């Protein structure tokens, strides 16, 4: 039986969709059978980040409303044949789906997949409630900025109130140079404030923009972000992986060190 994971943040623009695309692709690289669900009804984006925007026939709302079977709506990834996308509907809104319907869908999909990963819309309204309804685990994405961290704290509180079994933190777009001169909160600062387990630190990396331009997630390549995302995937798959040493001097970034956290 597969695990259902929701990628959420509260604030928009912190990297939920990028994280969903990379974590999903990375798990597929690790030979897991993965389905990604874009739950952002009306503002669909995961398809373009994955480079699959031209292949959409049916969408999430079609599945929920019974206009098609689940299998008809799933789009097979370009590069990995064990990776699928269930795209969102672009011409509907969040009220087209209920939390109960999402939960049923997740429970159906977990029979066929190792991981069901949902990209949650920004905000704390119905779209958020739909996305978290069927999830076993939540990955809360934040950047080290006051606005994003504050929203993340709100999300952590709501996940707790909804009895989410496991909630873990991804600190995204960390600028190591700014942290070093005291002008950006460190991942440890963010962990101290939010008081939840850290599962990944992703450095700010222009390769992300390039990979998104190309519609090909960079997870697993040599870039810092590619390594950081791959480490998250291995942790999700149950491996113990040390955090990248992002504080090493410039030029030594890729170095791994054996300390946990």
């Amino acid at each position, binding site marked *: 039986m597969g695990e259902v994971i929701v990628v959420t943040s509260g604030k928009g623009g912190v990297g939920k969709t990028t994280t969903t695309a990379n974590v999903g692709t990375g798990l597929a690289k690790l030979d897991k059978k993965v389905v990604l669900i874009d739950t952002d009804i009306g503002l669909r984006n995961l398809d373009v980040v994955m480079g699959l925007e031209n292949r959409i026939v049916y969408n999430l709302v079609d599945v929920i409303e019974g206009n098609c079977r689940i299998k008809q709506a799933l789009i097979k990834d370009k590069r990995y044949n064990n990776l699928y996308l269930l795209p969102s509907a672009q011409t509907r809104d969040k009220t087209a789906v209920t939390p109960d319907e999402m939960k049923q869908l997740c429970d159906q999909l977990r029979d066929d997949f190792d991981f069901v990963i949902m990209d949650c819309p920004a905000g704390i309204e119905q779209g958020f409630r739909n996305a978290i309804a069927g999830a076993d685990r939540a990955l809360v994405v934040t950047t080290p900025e*006051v606005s994003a961290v504050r929203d993340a*704290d709100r999300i952590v*509180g709501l996940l707790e109130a909804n009895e989410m079994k496991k909630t873990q933190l991804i600190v995204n777009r960390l600028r190591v140079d700014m942290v070093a001169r*005291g002008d950006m*909160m460190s991942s440890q600062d963010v962990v101290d404030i939010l008081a939840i387990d850290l599962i990944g630190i992703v450095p700010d990396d222009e390769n992300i923009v390039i990979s998104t331009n190309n519609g090909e997630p960079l997870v697993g390549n040599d870039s810092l972000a590619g390594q950081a995302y791959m480490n998250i995937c291995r942790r999700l798959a149950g491996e113990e992986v040390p955090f990248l040493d992002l504080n090493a001097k410039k030029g030594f970034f890729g170095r791994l060190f054996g300390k946990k956290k």
Partner: protein
Amino acid sequence: MSFLDIFKKKTVSSSNIAKGRLQLALASDRAGCSPEIMEKIKNDIISVISKYIEIDVAGLDIKIQQTEGENGEGLVPVLYANIPVKEIRRG
């Protein structure tokens, strides 16, 4: 940054300012206590204490903070009030 800045002792870093501000904001968020309510609590405290003691209203500071709990439960919120006294009224 100019050359002379190297010799200036750096004051609090902006990341520490961010962390401090966030911790305060989140403490009141988590306690479900808005700035408006804090203002009302502050005014009520002033009116109650002023019956007995002359206090420095301008210097009064009240906020919700995080502090280490006594029973090892980690950080817990506390209502912190700093109320400077001017003079205790006699009989």
